[in-house]
């Protein structure tokens, strides 16, 4: 596998360094060659920058991509927002040579050029398509048999599909496939593809953001989900942080929120410390406890052997 540039984005490094810990631990453990490169800025965030200045949004995104291109590297991002923004900029400039030329005439002044040659990967489709289910399975020491996990895709992993081509935009499968590969049950639930709603928290509408978080958390609580798994720092902020804020006000859901690499890391045998679990606001303890119980439960074949000994099966 050739080497990648990793694009962390602002949110993971500024707010959730423990997620970076989890991602690095797993990437290294899976022997995925990646390196940090100098010079990246904000991707930039679409809902902020694009709503104010579309041209600057394009130029900033193109500059980020050009940095990896200069090094001859493809980009891999564990942040859904970054992956989507960079891909949307790349898509828009690729289909419009006039715009691309305009952006490049700017970039030339700072010694850069956007070619559009760098591949852009989001962590989930990357693990699904490039690493592959087979290789992931071969690294699992302890599967999640018996655990009921709710995948939260995160909108920008697969939408807009004209730019991303990561999965079916309305019926995605890859994240479910990965969770099943780890041995867990991936729950079907009616609000599965509902947007997390974190965007509302960035436009002075905190109560509306909490209301959106509630919709999904309520359903998962009713279903008795053991955890939610996601792969986007913005969704993580919404479900871990905001769930915690609601719990402090006495509204309890008790849904642990795992990053995909948290789950994969546990299955590979890493400890909660190695995966930075201390940083999570919603306790992961209940999930780990049930997992332990599930692993200690006798398997069906052990049970059959037991009763056969007793002469019960004739």
């Amino acid at each position: 596998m050739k080497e990648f540039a990793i694009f962390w984005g602002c949110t993971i490094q500024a707010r959730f360094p423990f997620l970076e810990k989890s991602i690095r631990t797993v990437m290294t453990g899976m022997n995925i060659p990646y390196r940090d490169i100098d010079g990246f800025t904000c991707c930039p965030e679409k809902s902020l920058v694009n709503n104010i200045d579309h041209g600057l949004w394009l130029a900033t995104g193109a500059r980020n991509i050009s940095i990896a291109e200069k090094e001859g590297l493809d980009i891999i991002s564990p942040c859904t927002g970054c992956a989507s923004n960079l891909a949307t900029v790349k898509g828009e400039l690729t289909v419009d040579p006039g715009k691309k030329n305009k952006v490049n005439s700017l970039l030339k002044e700072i010694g850069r050029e956007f070619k559009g040659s760098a591949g852009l990967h989001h962590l989930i489709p990357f693990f699904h398509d490039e690493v592959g289910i087979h290789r992931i399975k071969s690294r699992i020491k302890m599967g999640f048999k018996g655990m009921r996990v709710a995948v939260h895709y995160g909108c920008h992993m697969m939408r807009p599909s004209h730019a991303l081509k990561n999965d079916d935009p309305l019926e995605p499968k890859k994240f479910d496939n990965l969770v099943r590969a780890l041995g867990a049950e991936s729950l079907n639930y009616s609000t599965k593809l509902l947007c997390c709603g974190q965007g509302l928290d960035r436009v002075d509408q905190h109560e509306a953001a909490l209301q959106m978080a509630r919709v999904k958390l309520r359903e998962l609580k009713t279903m008795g989900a053991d955890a939610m798994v996601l792969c986007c720092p913005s969704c993580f902020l919404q479900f871990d942080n905001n769930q915690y804020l609601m719990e402090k006000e006495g509204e309890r859901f008790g849904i642990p929120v795992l990053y995909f690499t948290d789950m994969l890391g546990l299955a590979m045998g890493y400890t909660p410390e190695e995966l930075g679990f201390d940083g999570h606001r919603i306790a992961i303890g209940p999930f780990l406890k049930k997992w332990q119980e599930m692993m200690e439960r006798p398997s069906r074949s052990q049970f059959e052997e037991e009763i056969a000994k007793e002469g019960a099966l004739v």
Partner: protein
Amino acid sequence: MLETGLDFDRLEKCDRCGACYDICPSCLNIDGYDPRAVIRDILDGKPERWAGSKHIWQCLECHHCLEICYQNYGFENAMTALRLYATKKGMHPQQVKRGWDMFIKTGRLGEPLLPARKKLNLPEPGKSGKDEFLKLLDLYMSRKKTR
């Protein structure tokens, strides 16, 4: 008026369709969120009615409407146009203003947490491209002015 590049023919159809209401997270979960009311006012030449409304900021840009749209359009276009319009009038939310200020000053929306990194035994983060970004921003803004 709106300087948007909006496709008014398609918006006319949006006004009569509404297929995305059943998939739009905000239509489904936020009281009073009604993009077609916004579109009607755009078509009637009255976008100013919405410049100060919180509703135009409730579009989550999840792109569900775009994906399910029979015209491959989606009413998110109308919402983006109105947010640009509101921003030009200085009527965007405080948090957006703060985020923008941080972005144009530092090129980022937050800096790596160094003490926490040390505790977690994380390596030095990659260097920020702030200086080069500020140069690009200067160039971009001066070209924008002369255009």
